[in-house]
């Protein structure tokens, strides 16, 4: 072997392997965690916006995924579609007309629970099936539709999307099929149908049942309104804001952006993960190269006796660190891809390995390695040549 750098790397295979794994760990942290967060966010946002209803009506206050899920009176759905008139029970209620351009509304309850698969979280929808299908293009492809939740013996039924049906497991750990039982809100539900396409949460149960289990009688999380024509959405939003002030009214098309805003804390978490990945790379290479320098003190003395400049010695060590880091980056990519495949095969988590983040992870791995090697390299370059060459 004629290359000093390659020879040094192959001389201590275990230490080289540990260094590579250390850098790879940082790369995996960045790629997999960022990919996981973004994958889940994109997937959820896509499913949230994958409905025909152009307008979403939510309770006032902060829009939060972690808040009380059933805060909005369900009767808004009827009020938006049919208007409000005083009744014998409520003679003082202010009359309001039907919102022009709205042809269908549906109340939806949305609850976030720990994933049945044990990793992460998953959302569950509570819905009134008949009105829901008028606001979406949801279609049951296997089994039968969801009940209204009031028919005795059919309160604990669920329908799931095709992805869930293909990747999920029932309470016994068996693949999902019609009749399988899954845990939702701490209760066992029977899967009675599989639907397409993925809309909102993957698991849907009757809104009535959700209200009973969560204690939010007659309430929902939001109301979706379908317009006669999509271009009427702005007009409908304006009317809703006029007649029902104090509530949030948003266009469905804005939901992905809203999701990004709602997940701002995740971005902070990702920054921490990126920083952690960088620190791991720096420390691993620092320790590896520092011990290498001590072990190779005599060889550094030989280099000095041959007339190697400080720059040559620094560059030799930096190149070695960069090469180890590059191998760590490659291993990290392989591990991240393997992790993505495993997670997606065994859980309902989605991982987006975007090129941008792969490049960032690679730069972090290599930059961390190069920075980590600076101190050992400078220390080596400044060794006294006579002491170094006499080192045992």
């Amino acid at each position, binding site marked *: 072997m004629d290359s*000093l750098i390659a020879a040094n790397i192959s001389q201590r295979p275990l230490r080289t392997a540990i260094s590579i794994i250390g850098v790879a760990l940082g790369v995996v942290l960045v790629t997999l965690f960022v990919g996981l967060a973004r994958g889940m966010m994109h997937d959820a946002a896509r499913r949230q916006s994958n409905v025909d209803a152009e307008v979403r009506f939510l309770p006032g206050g902060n829009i939060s995924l972690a808040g009380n899920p059933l805060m909005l009176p369900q009767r808004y759905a009827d009020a938006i579609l049919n208007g409000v008139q005083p009744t014998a029970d409520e003679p003082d209620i202010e009359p309001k007309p039907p919102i022009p351009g709205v042809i269908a509304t549906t109340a939806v309850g949305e609850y976030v629970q720990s994933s049945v698969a044990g990793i992460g979280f998953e959302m569950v929808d509570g819905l009134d099936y008949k009105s829901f299908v008028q606001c979406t293009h949801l279609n049951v492809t296997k089994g039968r539709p969801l009940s209204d939740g009031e028919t005795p013996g059919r309160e604990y039924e669920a329908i799931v999307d095709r992805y869930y049906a293909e990747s999920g497991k029932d309470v016994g750990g068996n693949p999902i099929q019609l009749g399988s039982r899954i845990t939702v809100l701490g209760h066992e539900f029977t899967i009675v149908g599989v639907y397409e396409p993925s809309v909102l949460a993957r698991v849907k149960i009757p809104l009535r049942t959700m209200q009973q289990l969560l204690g939010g009688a007659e309430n929902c999380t939001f109301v979706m309104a379908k317009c006669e024509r999509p271009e009427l959405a702005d007009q409908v939003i304006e009317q809703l804001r006029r007649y029902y002030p104090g509530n949030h009214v948003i266009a469905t098309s804005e939901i992905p952006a809203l999701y990004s805003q709602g997940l701002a804390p995740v971005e902070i978490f990702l920054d921490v993960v990126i920083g952690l990945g960088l620190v791991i790379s720096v420390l691993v290479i620092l320790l590896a190269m520092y011990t290498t320098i001590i072990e190779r003190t005599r060889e550094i003395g030989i280099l000095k006796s041959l*007339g*190697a*400049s400080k720059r040559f010695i620094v560059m030799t060590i930096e190149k070695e660190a960069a090469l180890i880091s590059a191998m760590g980056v490659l291993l990290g990519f392989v591990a991240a891809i393997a992790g993505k495949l495993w997670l997606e095969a065994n859980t309902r988590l989605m991982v987006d390995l975007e090129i941008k983040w792969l490049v960032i992870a690679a730069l972090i791995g290599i930059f961390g390695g190069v920075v980590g090697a600076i101190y050992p390299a400078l220390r080596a370059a400044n060794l006294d040549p006579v002491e170094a060459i006499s080192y045992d």
Partner: protein
Amino acid sequence: MLFTYHELRITYHASRITNPIMQPVLETIDLRMVYHVGKVEVPALRGATLRAEAGEYVAIMGPSGCGKSTFLHIVGGMLKPTSGRVIIEGEDLTAMTDAQRTDLRRRKIGFVFQRFNLFPTLTAEGNLKLAERIHSGKSSQDPARRRDVLKLLGLADKTHHKPLELSGGEQQRVAIARAVINRPAILLADEPTGNLDTENSEVVLDMMAQLNKELRQTIIMITHNAEAAARADRVIEMRDGHVVRSSVPLGAVRGHS
């Protein structure tokens, strides 16, 4: 008895036919070196003066602790003396910065050590290539020169062997090849046969003599071995940090007569 610089020159010129106006390849003038061990000052060199002409083979002998190795390290630019001057081919080493001394070492010095000091992970050829790369700064080097040197040192069939696959004598010959591959002005050898048996010592000394004769390689060699010193053109004796004697071995007188 101490020799003066003037006397040394007379002794030297008597032993060798040289051009009197020729610039010496190496000149040390009143070289002093004091080590500081805590608060104690330990003098290693107390005014060592020496001159060597191009192509000369000089052996330095003396008891342990007399300053031989310190002298060699200073001449090789690895140590800076406390005072005095070292001039190599007209360049004053003692007036240089650390980086400049390193650069001069790269251009003009070749080292051979008692412990061979080869890179164990590199092949014989790899060790030479590394020295070439440090010297030239380029990865493209002179394979013909490398072949010639390896052939001259009897290593033509050992180019792809790593040090641990070579005998001690072969390792030392690789170290010599590495030291001369870049045509240094001076080859500094520190006990080059100190780790070798008699047979291998003979081979290594023969090779060094051959380099001196065939390539006119200037050699300054530290040795405890009188037989090794006898191969040189001149033997310098050091004691207590001084050069105390310069003599011409009998073999050298015969060789030049």
